[in-house]
C-alpha cells in the first residue's frame, strides 16, 4: 500500500488520531490567533474607509470570512457524513458531528454581523431577502443536525441519522451561494472571486484574505479539540483511554 494511504488508515484509528490532534492543536490555535490579529490590524487600521459605505464596511471583515466558513463547515460536515454513511468510519462520524456546532457558531456570527451592517446601510435589521433567508435556513439545518444527534441515545446511530440529515441539507448550499445571482436581492453580489479578478482594492483585500485564512485555521483547531473530547467519550471503556488517566487503585492507596 502506498504510504499516504497507509497514513490515512492509521489516522482513522481513534488513539492515533487523539495523539495526532493533540500534537497539532497548540500550533493551530497559535496560527489562528496570530493571523487573526494581523487581519484585524489590517481591517481596522490600514484599510481605507469605503467611499460609499464609510467605516461601516469594516463589519464585512468579520461578516464575509464567517459567511464563507458557514458554507465550508457545512461542506466538511456533509462530506464526512457521506464517508460515515458509506464506509461506517467512526472517526468520520465524530468529525461530522464536531463540525456542526462550529458551523452553527459561524452562521450565527454571519447573521448578526450582517444585521448590524444592514441597519446603517439598508435601513433595516432584517429583510426576507433570498441570501438572508437561505443563510437562516442554514442555521436551522445546523440546529437540526445537532438536535437529532442529541435526541438519539446510541451515539453511532445518532451520528448516522444526523449525517443523513446533513447530506439532505446540502441542497441549501448552492442556494445560499447563488441566491445573489438567481434572484434580485438586496444583498450585494460577490466582490471577491476565487476564479477571475476580484473587484476590490488590494489594501482592502489582504486583511479579508488573512481573516479568511485565520477562520479556516481556527475551524480546524476547534474541530480537533472537539473531536478529541468526543473520542474520549466514545471510547471511554477502551484501554487507550484508561491509560491516559491515573490508575484508580493508586487513589485508594
Amino acid at each position, binding site marked *: 500500500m502506498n504510504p499516504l494511504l497507509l497514513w490515512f488508515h492509521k489516522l482513522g484509528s481513534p488513539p492515533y488520531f487523539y495523539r495526532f490532534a493533540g500534537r497539532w492543536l497548540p500550533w493551530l*490555535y497559535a496560527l489562528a490567533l496570530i493571523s487573526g490579529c494581523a487581519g*484585524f490590524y489590517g481591517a*481596522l487600521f490600514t484599510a481605507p*474607509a469605503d467611499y460609499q459605505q*464609510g*467605516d*461601516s464596511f*469594516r*463589519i464585512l471583515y*468579520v*461578516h464575509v470570512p*464567517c459567511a464563507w466558513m458557514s458554507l465550508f463547515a457545512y461542506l466538511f460536515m456533509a462530506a464526512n457524513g457521506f464517508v460515515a454513511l458509506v464506509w461506517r468510519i467512526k472517526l468520520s462520524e465524530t468529525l461530522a458531528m464536531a463540525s456542526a*456546532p*462550529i458551523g452553527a*457558531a459561524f452562521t*450565527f*456570527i454571519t447573521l*448578526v*454581523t450582517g444585521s*448590524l*451592517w444592514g*441597519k*446603517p446601510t439598508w435601513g433595516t435589521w432584517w429583510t426576507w431577502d433570498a441570501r438572508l433567508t437561505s443563510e437562516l435556513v442554514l442555521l436551522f439545518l445546523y440546529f437540526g443536525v445537532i438536535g437529532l444527534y442529541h435526541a438519539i441515545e446510541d451515539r453511532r446511530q445518532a451520528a448516522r441519522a444526523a449525517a443523513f440529515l446533513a447530506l439532505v441539507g446540502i441542497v441549501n448550499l448552492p442556494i445560499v451561494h447563488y441566491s445573489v445571482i438567481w434572484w434580485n436581492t438586496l444583498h450585494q453580489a460577490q466582490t471577491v472571486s476565487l476564479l477571475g479578478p476580484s473587484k476590490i482594492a488590494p489594501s482592502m483585500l489582504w486583511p479579508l484574505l488573512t481573516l479568511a485564512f485565520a477562520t479556516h485555521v*481556527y475551524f480546524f*483547531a*476547534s474541530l480537533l*479539540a*472537539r473531536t*478529541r*473530547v468526543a473520542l*474520549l*467519550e466514545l471510547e*471511554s471503556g477502551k484501554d487507550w*483511554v*484508561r491509560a491516559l*488517566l491515573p490508575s*484508580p*487503585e493508586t*487513589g*485508594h492507596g
Partner: protein
Amino acid sequence: MADFFAMHGYAAYVWPAYAVFAIVLIADALTPLFARRRVLREIDSRQRRAASRKPT
C-alpha cells in the same frame, strides 16, 4: 484615537459586530475545554466505582 473609536458615526454597528465575533468564538474555543474536564471526571469516577466493586 477618539476618531478611531467613533468610526465616523458607525461605532454603534462596527464594535458590536467585532464583539459578537470575539465572544462567540471564545465561547466556542472554551466549550471543548469544559467538555474535556467533564468527560475525564466521568471516566475517572466510573473507573473508581469499577475498582471498588472488584473483590480484593
